């Protein structure tokens, strides 16, 4: 049963899952970080309130977040086709994962930045700092621990989503679980994939918390 072949399949599954998760998280932040910052900054209590921009991003984030991931996956297939040339496999899944994760990430970044002490921002303003300087040198610096904690949560969530994409042949551990466990009733393989998923989430969680704890200078 635990043939070399199956081990290879599982190993490849881990590889694909990692690939999808990390790359989607990266692109998710590429979109979500600026979006979250813009949400925080243009908020009516932000440093540059702008109702129109805020509203547009706010509504966008809410819409995308309220669409169930599997449906989003199918909805944006034409776009996926355009970007990677096919609608199945890990690279295709990355496109949907990125779009699903970006608004979620944006919300977490927004709340991290909103937690930054208003007094410190005011101090920077009193020194003549402009909006960009405040974002770069105050908000992102003061919020970095909280943003990292957010990233840890995001990775865990994206990993879970990536497994879900297995339903439509998205590749990775989820895909294996469905193919072997669901279609072929090989429950031991399915359990193996589940355990691997749990271990992966655990690893990311541990690394993320350690890192953010070490970076936080507010303690001690």
């Amino acid at each position, binding site marked *: 049963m635990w043939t070399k072949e199956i081990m290879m399949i599982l190993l490849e599954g881990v590889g694909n899952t990692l690939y999808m998760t990390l790359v989607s998280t990266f692109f998710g932040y590429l979109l979500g970080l600026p979006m979250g910052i813009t949400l925080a900054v243009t908020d009516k209590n932000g440093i540059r309130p702008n109702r129109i921009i805020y509203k547009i991003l706010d509504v966008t984030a809410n819409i995308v977040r309220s669409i169930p991931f599997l449906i989003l996956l199918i909805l944006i297939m034409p776009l996926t086709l355009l970007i990677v040339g096919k609608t199945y496999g890990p690279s295709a899944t990355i496109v949907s994962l990125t779009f699903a994760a970006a608004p979620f990430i944006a919300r977490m970044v927004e709340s991290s930045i909103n937690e930054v*002490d208003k*007094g*410190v921002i*005011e*101090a*920077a*303003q*009193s*020194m*003549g*700092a*402009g909006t960009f*300087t405040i974002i770069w*040198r*105050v908000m992102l*610096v*003061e919020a*970095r*621990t909280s943003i990292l904690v957010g990233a840890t949560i995001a990775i865990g969530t994206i990993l879970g989503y990536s497994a879900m994409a297995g339903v439509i042949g998205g590749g990775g551990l989820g895909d294996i679980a469905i193919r072997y466990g669901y279609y072929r009733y090989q429950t031991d393989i399915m359990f193996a994939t589940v355990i691997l998923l749990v271990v992966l989430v655990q690893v990311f969680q541990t690394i993320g918390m350690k890192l953010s704890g070490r*970076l*936080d*200078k*507010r*303690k*001690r």
Partner: protein
Amino acid sequence: MAGIIEVQNLTKVFETKEGEVEALQDINLSIQAGDIYGIIGMSGAGKSTLVRCLNFLERPTEGTVEIEGRDLGAMTEMELRWQRSQIAMIFQHFNLLMQKNVIDNICFPLVIAGMKKKEARAKAEELLHIVGMEEKARAYPSQLSGGQKQRVAIARALAGSPKILLCDEATSALDPQTTQSILSLLKEINTKYGITIVIITHEMAVVREICSHVAIISKGHLVEQGRVFDIFSHPQTKEAKKLIIGGNEEANLNLESRQREQMKGKSCIRIVFSSNSSFEPVIANMVLKFGQPVNILKADTKNVEGIARGEMILQLPEDEQMQESMKEYLKERGLAVEEAEGYVD
């Protein structure tokens, strides 16, 4: 002479959901270069709003603020930012970057002004020395006491070589001793570097300690302003009298009501010692000269601008002739004398 800070007809109205809040109404202020200017008032009087208007962190609804003759309201965003870099500010809660160490915090205004990191560090080391915090250069704010944090904040404020330093309740989170040391540091900065200091506070003790001038605001109105010396000697308004004689402390209020009892129907005067007169045994000499005792109801010596100053409330003998002669005697010795009847309001 036009001051380094000129405020004219400044009004600030906040629009809130509950309606308009008039935080400041028709404020006029003139602060001369080199002054240590106190702005005192009860909580909610509008002090923070006023100080935030001085560097346009808050835009006035009406009126103008001029810094060295330049109207902040007429400035572009860029000019305004440059102007702000010339006006430093320190806060009640210090507002340091919690994720940066002491030296990087002090470098902050220099770095945003575009100074090279190395130069900024060198300058920051110097400033640390001025505020006496050399050995804490690598510490993080969370590892410092309140007084130490405020020293770092002062060093940071000085980094941009400002002409003006605004302090919003800078000592309100500190214990009396630490307050003393921070106030002396501010005084030193004022004399050494000629930086004009505006101090917002709700404590008369702070004004008495270091301010040369004071403005009293109450419910958004500026009710009295002038030299601390003059306001202490001759407070005009009820608010000023309350702050000076009574203080805010309960103990004083009790004392006051006892005094009021004692003074009923008797002739009481309030005398104010100025310059070095308090060191002369004026009262003793007067008693010896007239051969009549006087009753000292209240004596309070305070330190104003570094000069020992005091005030006393005296109960004079019944004889009106004698009262007049005694008042005359005191006035001749350069003391301000005024009737205290109904004074303790």
